[in-house]
């Protein structure tokens, strides 16, 4: 029945696909941390058995084991222990289902470092900063890069000779290294912008003019360190795409017809755009990763920083919670791009599908 509405069919089939991917991501998030010899579950099991810990440490570990449903529980909610005091581990498959159940409920466990704060609470505080930094940066970088790439392809000559190599160079600089360079030059040498943080330290987050302007001031350096590199990468891709389009018959025909230049550029741009949109969907994961590390350089109060503290403090529940959240956000971003493609790609409307 859905076949009669190709766009709807396309979107719902993508939705099913992303749900499967989500389940795979949850599985990976559950299994991978257990592969290593220093995996959190073994360590905590061993520590909880030794009985050498302080009382609060014991409490944390028990909360972890119970919270993630890793151990068998007595009827009164206490942990079942064997003769030597070692907690009795649940079978792996049971642990897995407990974990999936937790995730679907939106519970990501309790943080070790900030015990008894819930992981979701910590993440909720960090998310707005990450979203505010990354969404505009990625979208603007993508648009700016594409325009630059199209111009370079269309104008060629000196314009291309300057833009293309610089875009390629920008694309080769690692995000974090560029961030460090900007901090060093603009924050520490010239004192133009603040080096770290998301807003002035004497302020509290609020919807006041004072706070927002301070946040905007702190926004400049992180923004540019992600934006320029992203734009560089997009520009190189768009340039080849446009040169390819310029060699096609329809452009030649349009030129013979004596069409206005801006019209031809518009056609070229529109056709080169779709593959770029697919390219965006494929590279969002990498972009988000790079941007998160940039957040760490700037001690920006977002997810990147929470992740860094979590890694340094071995806060496993927080690490696992953040990685899952990042994956889910990347999935959502991808799905949105797919929906956009569904509306823009004439092949989808015609029911041919695009792969």
């Amino acid at each position: 029945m859905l076949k009669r509405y190709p766009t709807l069919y396309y979107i719902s089939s993508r939705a099913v696909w992303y749900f499967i991917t989500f389940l795979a991501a949850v599985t990976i998030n559950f299994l991978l941390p257990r592969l290593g010899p220093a995996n959190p579950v073994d360590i905590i099991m061993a520590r909880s058995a030794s009985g050498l810990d302080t009382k609060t440490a014991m409490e944390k570990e028990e909360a972890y084991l119970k919270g993630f449903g890793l151990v068998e529980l007595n009827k009164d909610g206490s942990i079942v222990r064997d003769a030597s005091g070692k907690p009795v581990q649940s079978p792996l498959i049971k642990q897995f289902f407990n974990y999936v159940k937790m995730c679907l409920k939106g519970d990501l466990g309790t943080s070790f470092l900030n015990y008894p704060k819930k992981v979701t609470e910590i993440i909720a505080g960090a998310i707005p900063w990450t979203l505010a930094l990354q969404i505009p940066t990625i979208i603007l970088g993508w648009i700016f890069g594409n325009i630059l790439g199209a111009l370079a392809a269309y104008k060629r000559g000196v314009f291309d000779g300057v833009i293309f190599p610089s875009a390629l160079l920008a694309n080769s600089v690692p995000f974090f290294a560029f961030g460090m360079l900007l901090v060093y030059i603009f924050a520490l040498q010239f004192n133009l912008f603040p080096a770290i943080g998301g807003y002035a330290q004497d302020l509290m987050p609020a919807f006041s003019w004072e706070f927002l302007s301070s946040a905007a001031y702190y926004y400049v350096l992180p923004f540019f360190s992600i934006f320029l590199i992203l734009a560089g990468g997009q520009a190189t891709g768009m340039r080849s795409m446009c040169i390819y389009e310029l060699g096609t018959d329809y452009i030649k025909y349009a030129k013979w017809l004596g069409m206005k230049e801006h019209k031809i550029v518009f056609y070229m741009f529109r056709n080169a755009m779709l593959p770029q949109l697919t390219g965006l969907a494929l590279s969002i994961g990498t972009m988000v990763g790079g941007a998160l590390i940039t957040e760490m350089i700037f001690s920006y109060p977002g997810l990147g920083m929470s992740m860094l503290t979590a890694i340094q403090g071995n806060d496993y529940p927080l690490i696992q919670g953040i990685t899952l959240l990042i994956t889910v956000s990347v999935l959502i971003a991808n799905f949105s791009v797919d929906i956009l493609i569904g509306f823009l790609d004439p092949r989808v409307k015609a029911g041919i599908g695009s792969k």
Partner: protein
Amino acid sequence: MKILKNLLKSPFFVIGMGLFLGTILLALFAPLFYHIDIHSRVGAAYMNPGGKYLLGTDHMGIDMFSLLLEGLRSSLYVGFMAGIIATVIGTSLGVYAGFKGGWVDDFITMVTNLFIVIPQFVILILVSASMKEGRSLSLIAFLIGLTGWTWSARAVRAQAASLKSRDHISLAKVNGVKTVGILLLHILPYLMSYVFMVFIMQTASGILSEASISMIGLGPFDTVSLGTILNQAMRSEALTDGAWWAFIPAMILVTIISFALYLINTSMEGVFNPRLRK
């Protein structure tokens, strides 16, 4: 040969190859001319460049130039290892899926797309965080290769699928050549230049991935790499101390290597796709 001649005409290729070979030669032969010592403290913390030590010292008083050379060697090693592993996995899966078609193709494509969407660095973080002591450089290279093959599988699959219906392939099939034989003798040779480009890009992304993962403190424990140098500089306040020599040279090296590899890749694209040349 003709391809090489064409490539040498492209300034991008010459510059890229020159830079890349330069870094490789530096990494290979520097130990012959310079005594690399990354363990002993030779002076105070953050000694200025110049003088006895070309690039000064790091926060522990270790010779920065030694660290940089060792870091370059490690980073190139990770890049090549990860590049080879990812290229082999990606190419094999891609060629096989593209040639076979049908449900095999569907399955491999689905798995590939799945791992394209799940960010590589998330997987790297999850695995590295659970390996505290045993995190060696080789292990990290291996992990990066094992998780980075996805987009090359996708790209190679598309190429192989377009070759599938060529006459010489049908002829080989009629003559009873086995699938493996067709893949190795009749499809891969046509894709060699493409596979080489994939390898170049995988190496570049391997070096960048290692640098990123080391930057967040999940790098190798057994040696220094360009990423761990940057991480150490960041953690020990090289920025606020104005010790530019502790991070800018490492940064420039990472950038030069990946820039060189991108240049090589772009110039090869230009040669193999005449439409881009103009």
